[in-house]
């Protein structure tokens, strides 16, 4: 087991190394470099004329004249040693300051979404598998088709609309006005959770639809296996047969795709956040891409990917704990 853990941990670091190179390439892709954009933003409209030599000096100041690999090393070195993600020119501060607590909110939203996804999809999927070809099962199939077909941001818009129309409240944002400036308290926390519920529902929507189908299919396969009949032949009560035997194996594919779910949620997050005006990383990512604030964009991309890679690791470990066949092979 220890060997398994070390192996996966090393794999995680190697993956992150390659991902960081990819992110760096993306940061370098947009035309012009940081100095151009810095100069343009700083001085455009001020009447000051910027000469080529001014830009050159900015370039020197940020070390942009050095070769790409050196710049990569400086960038990644800063992140690894000082947790410094570089400057943000759009906000005229560091990327760290811009990202700040948004990262925490993102993780809270992510965990809430995952929890909601699994709490919904696993029991419902098992139920559907137990009642195959019943009206409820057909209904669920239709709902999950819709879940895959309705883009999350559309659902967000619909919910926003319903909220305004029937409840007279805005569902967007993360805090009610009275808590926006207030210090942290239980009231504020509860308020945050209330506001996170709708985004979590929106983000969990398609992930739930997908996982529901997976759980249902796996559960159907497992139910047909001999060991289920064997457990029945042992005289166990039906609920125990179902929960202890096939249900336990039906969640394996769910566990093994946690990373995939996180990837999916992060894919949808920016757009949902934009529609629902949530101040977290996704929305910031769009802004920074539109502004070409590439250090911030790179930092966010790297963070999101790091969370995915970590969740992949978690999924590997949980899977090994759940299934002795994987554990004993030594991975």
């Amino acid at each position, binding site marked *: 087991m220890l060997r398994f853990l070390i192996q996966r941990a090393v794999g995680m670091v190697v993956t992150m190394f390659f991902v960081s190179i990819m992110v760096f390439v993306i940061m370098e892709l947009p035309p012009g470099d940081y100095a151009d954009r810095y100069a343009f933003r700083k001085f455009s409209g001020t009447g000051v004329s910027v000469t080529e030599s001014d830009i050159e000096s900015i370039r020197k100041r940020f070390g942009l004249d050095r070769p790409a690999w050196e710049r990569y090393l400086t960038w990644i070195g800063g992140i690894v040693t000082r947790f410094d993600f570089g400057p943000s020119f759009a906000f005229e501060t560091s990327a760290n300051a811009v990202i700040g607590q948004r990262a925490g909110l993102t993780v809270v939203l992510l965990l809430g979404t995952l929890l909601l996804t699994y709490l919904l999809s696993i029991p419902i999927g098992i139920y559907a598998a137990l009642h195959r070809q019943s009206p409820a099962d057909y209904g669920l199939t239709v709902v999950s088709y819709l879940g895959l077909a309705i883009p999350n941001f559309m659902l967000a818009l619909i919910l926003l609309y319903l909220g305004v129309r029937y409840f007279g409240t805005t569902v967007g944002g993360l805090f009610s006005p009275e808590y926006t400036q207030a210090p942290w308290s239980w009231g504020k926390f509860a308020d945050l959770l209330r506001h996170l519920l709708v985004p979590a529902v929106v983000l969990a929507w398609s992930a739930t639809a997908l996982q529901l189908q997976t759980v249902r299919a796996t559960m159907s396969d497992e139910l047909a*296996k*001999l*060991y289920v*009949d*064997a*457990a*029945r*032949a*042992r*005289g*166990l*009560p*039906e609920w125990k047969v179902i929960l*202890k*035997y096939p249900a*336990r*194996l039906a969640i394996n594919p769910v566990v093994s795709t946690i990373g995939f779910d996180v990837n999916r949620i992060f894919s949808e997050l920016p757009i949902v956040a934009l529609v629902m005006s949530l101040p977290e990383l996704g929305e910031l990512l769009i802004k920074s891409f539109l502004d070409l604030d590439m250090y911030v964009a790179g930092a966010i991309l790297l963070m999101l990917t790091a969370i995915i890679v970590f969740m992949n690791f978690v999924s590997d470990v949980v899977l090994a704990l*759940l*299934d*002795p*066949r994987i554990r*004993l092979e030594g991975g």
Partner: protein
Amino acid sequence: MTANGGALLEITDLGVSFTTDEGMVRAVDGVSLAVHPGRTLGIVGESGSGKSVATKAVIRLLPANARIDGGSRILLRRAEGEIDIARLPAGGRELRRLRGGDIGMIFQEPMASFSPVYTIGNQMIEAILAHRDHLDRRLGRRFDRRAARDHAIRMLERVGMSNARLRIDQYPHELSGGMRQRAMIALALSTHPSLLIADEPTTALDVTIQAQILDLMLELQRELGMAMLFITHDMGVIARIAEEVAVMYLGRIVERGPTREVIRDPAHPYTRGLLAALPRVETSRRRLTPVPGDIPSPLQRPAGCPFHTRCPRRMPGLCDREVPADTALDARRSVACHLFGGRAS
């Protein structure tokens, strides 16, 4: 049916149908048989003959689309009295007490009948604890978790597993096929059932291990005094283990009697075909003669005698029109074939 006063299990007129997309499938049609305490009845037939369905009906382990006919009776005689399993409410406490308690069952695939994610011990102890009351009556002692574990280890040792204390905490995939089947037998017998149903328990094993397992089962049967209902498609296995045999074809019993007599002098053409398909020392140089043709789809049951489509001795105009009735050959043997004058009674 002859009187079976002493029978442990008495099945009368059992019929099982399945509702499928293509229509009703009649898998078992009017089967009657009896198993006596401490003795073994073998049921033999090709796949699709309904032998598995018939035995699964005994512990009501049929899929949801299956229905047992209203007139069927599955009587089990226990010390506490007689019950008709066919009429027990599905999923009820009574039925659960029977399954794994009075009636144990072992399956064809030793790999697939254990869940891969729990240890052998976990699944054995679970069975023992589920039948605490039953064991209390049989052995006069009450098991707690630790005692159940000790009992499980003893059972594993009893079925010839070395290092049982270690093996009990292993997962099924860490054991070989033969060992897994031994563990399955240990599990089924750990509750001391009065009847063991064995559904082709040796088919998936290679021949040497097959022989070992059969010997073990015979030995345990003698020791525990239980009755066995043994299903196989292999006449050779039947010859070794069963005192009596019932040959099934397309959901009906076509011939029955003491094993030795049936093998020495098979009456039904189908039984003859099955025996001819058996490899023998003196015929090993010749080609085996399997029963020609395929078993018909149960959706298209032939009219008349179910076997007439493959029968080398069919009588046109009779066999394809009328269902042959059970004809007694002597006190213990009967056959359902027009060759023996079996007109519908």
